[in-house]
């Protein structure tokens, strides 16, 4: 009732404002041409502004494609599977960077999914009082506000020295597996994976939280009513009902992890020597761009642009797929 009153109040105020705007009160008048012109002009302006999105998007694609045509025609698809990157002999291939991009983003996703979804479940269930849950939710979301370069700084000076002994233990125990086959000596893929986890955790948590909250409470009550326990309900009822949002969030996080630049550039070691090991220094496409683009010239620029094009296509596919999944699966409970 109180809300309704407030609405009516603001309503009247707004109506008064309309009156002030049209100075002639309660009289029949013809709309002057100037007013019509303003109306039409305004519409055209906002249409133009909305089109800017399309213009920017297309020109990004067009420019990156145009700048990389030289490399595309010279290397074709061979570029994707060649790990040589040699400005002296003018031979370029992005395999190391593509491998680094895929491994870091997928590995960080594998760690961040259970953490993020688990956190989201914890703060949507009534295990602890609501204000504590709200505080946890806000804290995880504030993590997204910290710029990636600050996280990179923290990773270089604090996190990497701290985790190195633990990584060494893994290397000594599991060194025979190719993925752990080099000794961790500072910067490398593993610290980059961990810092990516920190960066994508807020995305997965907040989107999963939102979609878990939207599950109708009837479903939960019905499950409890027939004797299901809390976690049976969560696994068999709540998560399946919210799966579209969770998947969408995970895919958005994947896109972010692939394109993330600064923190990764600072900690991944920036080496083009290919290695299967996640303890070795490596490259991602974005860190390669950040590192080399400033000093590159000639065919190196067009090769870097080719790599940028690959990165764009990868993130575009992931993002479009995310939107499609959300649309496809979200019709279930509305």
């Amino acid at each position, binding site marked *: 009732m109180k809300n309704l009153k407030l609405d009516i109040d603001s309503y009247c105020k*707004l109506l008064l404002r309309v009156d002030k705007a049209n100075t002639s009160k309660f009289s029949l008048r013809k709309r002057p041409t100037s007013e019509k012109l303003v109306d039409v002009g305004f519409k055209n302006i906002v249409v133009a502004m*909305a089109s800017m999105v399309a213009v920017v998007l297309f020109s990004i694609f067009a420019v990156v494609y145009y700048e990389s045509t030289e490399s595309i025609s010279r290397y074709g698809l061979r570029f994707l599977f060649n790990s040589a990157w040699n400005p002296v002999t003018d031979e370029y291939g992005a395999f190391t960077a593509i491998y680094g991009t895929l491994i870091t983003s997928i590995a960080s996703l594998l760690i961040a999914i259970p953490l993020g979804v688990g956190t989201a479940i914890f703060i949507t269930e009534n295990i602890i009082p609501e204000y504590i849950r709200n505080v*946890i939710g806000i804290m995880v979301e504030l*993590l997204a*506000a910290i710029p990636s370069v600050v996280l990179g700084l923290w990773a270089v000076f604090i996190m990497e020295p701290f985790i190195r002994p633990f990584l060494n233990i893994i290397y000594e125990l599991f060194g025979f597996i190719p993925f752990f086959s080099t000794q961790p000596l500072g910067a490398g893929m593993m610290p980059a994976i961990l810092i990516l986890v920190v960066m994508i955790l807020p995305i997965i948590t907040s989107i999963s939280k939102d979609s878990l909250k939207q599950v109708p409470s009837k479903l939960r009550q019905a499950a409890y009513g027939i004797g299901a326990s809390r976690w049976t309900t969560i696994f068999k009822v709540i998560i399946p009902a919210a799966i579209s949002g969770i998947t969408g969030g995970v895919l958005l996080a994947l896109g972010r992890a692939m394109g993330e*630049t600064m923190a990764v550039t600072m900690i991944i070691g920036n080496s083009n020597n290919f290695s299967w090991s996640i303890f070795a220094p490596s490259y991602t496409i974005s860190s390669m761009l950040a590192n080399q683009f400033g000093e590159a010239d000639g065919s190196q620029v067009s090769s870097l642009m080719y790599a*940028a094009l690959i990165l764009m296509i990868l993130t575009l596919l992931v993002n479009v797929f995310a939107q499609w999944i959300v649309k496809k699966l979200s019709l279930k409970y509305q």
Partner: protein
Amino acid sequence: MNYTSQKSLTYNPSLARNIGNRTLTIISALFAFISVLPLILVISYVLIKGGSYINIETLILEPEPPGDDLLSAGGIGPAITGTFIMAVIASIISIPVGVGGGIYLTEYSKSGKFAKFIRFGSNVLAGVPSIISGVFIYAIIVSTKILFGSMFSGIAGGISLSILMLPTIIKTTDEALKLVPDDMRRAALGVGASKFTMITNITLPAAFSSICTGVLLALARAAGETAPLIFTALFSRYYITSFDDLFYEMGSLSVLIYNFALEPYEAQNQLAWAASFILVVVLLSLNILSRWIGSHGAFSKNKL
């Protein structure tokens, strides 16, 4: 036959399903703890380590070239003004375009094909990696010297940041205007307002606080970005002194952190920590401010 006597109805903690439930609850609590841990660690390191290097000289002086003076590295003054200037340039470009685009989506074409395409496009643009925006601006502005012959410039940096802000502003404007009840629009049109008057005097004021939230969030994200700046604005150690300086290299907090974190000198590293203190404090305040505004608006999500 009495079924209830067979099984007790009281909670039995040693039942397998109860043990399983408790274990899972503890695991989820542990996950929540691990998720909050990085924030606490990062913020406390930045505030304590960075805060200890903050003094009036650090805030005002120009940074000195690495290796010149091992004891002092100067200050971060030009970087603070540079970040501010580029954020302002980015806002000047992206706020009108973003709000205008959002107005078109909600007020003029609710579910037309073009509007659908623009919504899809702004989602895609939001997913474009920030470094690509830097590469793009490098290719069309820096390398072509289209801005009156200048190459790396603060203006180019601001433009590349505006590309990052644009999709967020369009989306939040669109969502905010959608929350304004249609009754208000009909009432305005009914008393004879033109569509332009209706939008500027009724719907925009009603959605103002939510739009502010989106703009502040976009601004906070752009001000912390580094990747679009490293080959558009580059870095400069000097204050800008005239309008012309906008067309030359410009320093920013984030690029200063990136450059000086990788220097081997202790003094430069300390400056990077001091700069991240300022950046984190400003960005967290912007974020909290936007949350506060968002929860106090007339038609904010939390109320409807």
